[in-house]
């Protein structure tokens, strides 16, 4: 899965949890908590959705590494062994 595809997955799961989100308006480098109205239950559901869809195991200590769109994509890519640009 390429970075773009991973990005697509992350955005899809976010908008599934918070349907009011405009995917085009997500600023990639700013934390989700700052720009989106997500509570801890939403964030937990987001992490669980990524786990279910991508099959990645995400330890709780790593949750902080999923706080922005860019970070989340980079983290998921590293967990899946995706090389940059592939």
């Amino acid at each position, binding site marked *: 899965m390429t970075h773009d595809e991973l990005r697509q997955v992350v955005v899809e799961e976010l908008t599934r949890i918070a349907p009011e989100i405009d995917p085009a308006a997500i600023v990639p480098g700013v934390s989700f908590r700052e720009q989106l109205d*997500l509570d801890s239950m939403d964030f937990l559901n987001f992490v669980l959705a990524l786990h279910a869809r991508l099959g990645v195991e995400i330890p709780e200590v790593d949750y902080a590494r999923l706080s922005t769109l860019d970070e989340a994509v980079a983290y998921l890519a590293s967990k899946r062994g995706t090389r940059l640009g592939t």
Partner: protein
Amino acid sequence: MPMLGADMEAGTLVEWTKRPGDAVHRGDIIAVVDTQKGAIEIEVFEDGVLEQIVVQTGTKVPVGTVLARIHGTGEPARAPAAPTPVTAPAPGAPVSSEPARHGESTSAGRVRVSPSARKLAESLGVDLARVTGSGAQGAIMREDVERAARQPAAAAPTVDRAAAMRAAIAAAMTKAKREIPHYYLSTTIDLGAALAWLRTENEKRPMTERLLPAVLLIKAVALALRDVPELNGTWVDGSFRKGDGIHIGCAISLRGGGLVAPALHDADRSALPALMRSFQDLVARARAGALRSSELADPTITVSNLGDQGVDATFGIIYPPQVALVGFGRIASRPWVAGERIEARPVVTATLSADHRATDGHRGGLFLTAIDRWLQTPEKL
């Protein structure tokens, strides 16, 4: 029509999930009702046989209206399929030739349908429970079925849901501020032990079974209510009525505005993993608009957690007829004096809004202290 919270005055019957003659058991979903809080599944309170549906689908009726009659199992059984006599019209009420209005079915036991209308309904796929009869004593005729077939299936809610919910919250909160003499207490709780325990616990758990700190807070409130039961219940007709269990109403904000506070039943008796699953399920269903009647009718206290929004403390308004609300702010790292040292510790501010008619500040203080005490021994939660 059950009262699903102090702010509810009426509901619209959307669907009957059982038919006359069906056996029903306590807790079964018998109908779906549309309210300002979304579609609510109505549960049965007794075992028996559904004898008669009184309120037809699409009808809006006030709280307290009889929706259906259930023949209890303790009573002499009556064959549900047996023809039932037509009840006499109420004294003085003329037998009208006008179409029977929804909710005023004059037949007992079953809907009167002319044989040809029944046949037509079957062929057109029309649910007879949704058809208004224009024949004698509300009997359903061929033309009624034809008319029903031309109409959309369910009466779509015409009111703007967000506006209706706003109005309901306004009514309940105005009542609370007008009638309940609130007193407020607050305390700051060291969550160092609780969060350290939670971290270790979550490391052991598969992803899908990890716990949120909010669940520890809810459980601590539930156990503290065992210690101080005077805050668990309702104020009705000038006196305190103790709750029949510890049912924590969880304030859940809805996307697009508004909130609901459905119950986590018997939260004091649920182990943390079960409580977490129930909480996840409750939040999901609250936001999808699929709560059950008991969840809205049963809360004996409310917990409002606004920590995720970054506030330090929450000073809530009690949801009548309850007598208390516990608020939590965000869990933040703060300087904390431990022994002779100042350390950074994760702390949370817990507040209590309580009804002074039911308790005094002394009781309230004991309660907040009990919450703190439970959170210092997380392994016992």
